[in-house]
């Protein structure tokens, strides 16, 4: 199953569907790494809102993605982990340590913006 990857400015956004096999995950990893170099993206957002399960393999693959993309000079953010999924992950002992996570696409983009010191990015000031 192909995961749609969109380019938005200097970022790539991959939106994952729910029924993802291990093969699909590996394919996504390889595609993202390839695309990052190809379009010289500064950041990658992997939107896992639709994933109802993130198990040990998915976690490892997501960490691999972040690591490999960082080697290419770009930052990865995983967004949209559902509360139930987060709960299962920590119970299983999976932490996604060293990988940035945000609540949703909007937050993820904000994070990348801050990270990349992109002043064109819209930032909401809270006081």
């Amino acid at each position, binding site marked *: 199953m192909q995961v749609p990857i969109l380019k938005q400015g200097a970022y790539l956004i991959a939106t994952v569907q729910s029924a993802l*096999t291990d093969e699909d995950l590996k394919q996504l990893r390889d595609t993202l790494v390839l695309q990052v170099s190809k379009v010289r993206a500064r950041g990658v957002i992997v939107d896992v809102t639709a994933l109802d399960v993130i*198990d*040990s393999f998915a976690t490892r693959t997501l960490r691999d993605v972040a690591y490999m993309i960082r080697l290419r000079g770009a930052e990865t953010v995983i967004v949209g982990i559902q509360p139930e999924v987060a709960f*299962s992950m920590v119970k299983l002992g*999976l932490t996604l340590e060293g990988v940035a996570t945000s609540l949703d696409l909007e937050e993820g983009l904000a994070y990348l913006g801050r990270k990349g010191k992109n002043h064109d990015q819209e930032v909401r000031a809270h006081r």
Partner: protein
Amino acid sequence: MRVSIDCDSDVVAARQKGRELASQCGFPSTDLAVVATAISELARNIVRYAIRGEIILRLVQNDGKKGIEVVANDDGPGIPDVGLAMQDGYSTSGGLGLGLPGTRRLMDDFEITSDFGKGTTVTIRRWRR
């Protein structure tokens, strides 16, 4: 309900069926994710190490409590040292190896029988509170 596990996509099928069954039993959404995740781990082990096996899903009752039971069966090479496999290596990479200690943490009941050359059977259960 039996799901035979032959390949990758069967892992997804197994956990979706498990989620459906748990939902029928009335488990809240958090438990659905927990059960589906546990099934995913067990089913993957079958695909990776045993090539072929099956997942049996059942609704069970005990003392008025309702629950779901998942049995993961395979004729694979088996685990020679179950004790070692069940050890919780608290590593930051997490989830290495068979993910069995993690699966045990997810569920209420956990039983495993396995021996070298004899295949593996893992039985897990989660009860409705």
